[in-house]
Every structure is written in structure tokens, then in C-alpha cells.
């Protein structure tokens, strides 16, 4: 399903990043990094427009030739970014939404773990499992 999943802290440094074809890691880091500007733009636009929907899910951030990049931001301003292969047209908006939902739920569990230090890299087997599950379905 997803080819790259990233979690970015409030201060815009990566907390977690995983991608499926491991040989091209740097490219995904770039893609995620670039998406942050769009995220920032969307967040600041939320307060201004009168008829804002105030949703956590930000939708499609930007499409590139090979990938589609989706974003989500929690109330604590932690960003989730999911990169999906463009060729995968079967993926609906709803499915992306539920992926983010799952990711958010799992992230909350990580944050509530007393042994985790907020602001540190995420090292959790449960979280790894959720992320792997989303990437496995690529087929």
C-alpha cells in the first residue's frame, strides 16, 4: 500500500521514517522533507478561512510523477506523512484516512508509554507492526 511512512515532530525533525524499497532511502527523505512546507501552509490556512473544517486529516499534499503524498497533523502538531505509489489507483481517500487513524492511535499508545521520552525517536514494536502492516498490503 504505502511505500513510505514518516512521523515528524512538532519542531519538524523526524521521529520515525520507514520506506519499502530500502535502496532509495534518501529520495524518500527528500520527498517527506519537501512535503513539510505544504503541511505548514495547510495548517496556517485552517485558522484563516471562515468555513474551515478543522480536520486533522490534510488530504493529498502534492502529487509527483511517481508518488502521491498525503498528510495528517495531530492536535499536538505532530505530522504524519504517507507516500503512496501513483500507479496504485485503487486506493481511496477513505482508506488513506483510516490508515492515518490507525497510525494516530498507535502513536498515542507510544506517547502514553511511560518509558518513552516525548521528543525521542519512536522505538516501539507495536508501532513498527502497524507500519509494516500498512506497507505489506502493497502486493
Amino acid at each position, binding site marked *: 500500500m504505502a511505500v513510505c511512512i514518516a512521523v515528524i515532530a*512538532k519542531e519538524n525533525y523526524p521521529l520515525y521514517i520507514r520506506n519499502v524499497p530500502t535502496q532509495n532511502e534518501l529520495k524518500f527523505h527528500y520527498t517527506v522533507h519537501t512535503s513539510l512546507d505544504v503541511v505548514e501552509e495547510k495548517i496556517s490556512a*485552517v*485558522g484563516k478561512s471562515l468555513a474551515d*473544517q*478543522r*480536520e*486533522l486529516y490534510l488530504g493529498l499534499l502534492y502529487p509527483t510523477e511517481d508518488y502521491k503524498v498525503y498528510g495528517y*497533523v*495531530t*492536535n*499536538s*502538531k505532530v505530522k504524519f506523512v504517507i507516500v503512496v505509489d501513483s500507479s496504485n489507483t485503487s486506493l481511496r481517500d477513505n482508506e488513506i484516512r483510516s490508515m492515518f487513524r490507525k497510525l*494516530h*492511535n498507535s*502513536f*498515542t499508545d507510544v*506517547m*502514553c*508509554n*511511560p518509558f518513552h521520552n*516525548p521528543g525521542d525517536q519512536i522505538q516501539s514494536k507495536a508501532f513498527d507492526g502497524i507500519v509494516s502492516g500498512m506497507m505489506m498490503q502493497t502486493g
Partner: protein
Amino acid sequence: MTDEVLFEFLHMEMVSNVYKEQQSNKMQMDNKDRAACVSVLESMGFRVGQGLIERLTRDSPSFKDELDIMKFICKDFWTKVFRRQIDNLRTNHQGTYVLQDNKFTMLTQLSNGKQYLDHAPKHLAFSCGMVRGALSNLGLDSVVTAEVAVMPSCKFQVVIQKL
């Protein structure tokens, strides 16, 4: 009903344990020791608040502004933690908020008289830290202090630190 008091019991034990630990080193406690205990409890609360707000805001839409966040703290957050809402929220619209709780859960088990008034700070430190932690995770750096005039009622003053 019974599970509601668990947090209260745990909180009482936590307070007494922190104080006992500090006291075990010496015979007498001075103001510095008390401040150390309060700061230990406060930082424990900070971490709890950070985690808790992450969980509580999971299903709520994103916040419009500072006041929106404070309202969330007064209503949803307070209800989840202390099983009641804040009775009165006042603000000067410049980053200072006063949250008044007329029957603060952590103080209801203490006598209403003046006798234990100077014991109040240790029962408030954890809650102050929790509010500060919650706000910090929502992107607001703050200073939270508590004040007790008559026993079960308590005023929390939140000052948001502007950059």
C-alpha cells in the same frame, strides 16, 4: 464508583511517598526540601499531562486558538481527570487565565478549616504539572500556579509564555 477513587488514593500515596523519601535523608524539612518535593511532583504531572492530552485530543477537531484550547482543558480535560468541570474561567485576553474549581477533587479529603492550609501545595503540584504538560504538548508554553484561600476551592492561574 469504586474506580473513581483509585486515582485519589494513588495521588495521596504518591505525595506522601515523595515527601517521605525527601525526609528520610534528614531530620527536619526546610523550605528548600519542600520546593524539591513540589518540583518532583510537578514534573511527574507534566509527563502525565503530555501523554493524556495526546489521548484526549485524538478524536477532537483541531483547535482554533488559545481560548479554544483553554476551554478544552476546562471542560473535557477536567472532566476526564477530576470528574467535574471548571466552575469559572476568566481571562484578560493577553495570555493569563484563571481557572476556578469550587470543589477541587484533590482537596475534598482534607479538612475545610484553616488547619491544613499550608499542606495544600503538595496536593496541587501534580495537577499544576498536568495542566502545564497538556498545554505544552498543544504548543503553549506556560507557567501554572495554584492558590487556595478556603479549603476545597482552588484557583489555578495559567500564564502563557509568549515568544
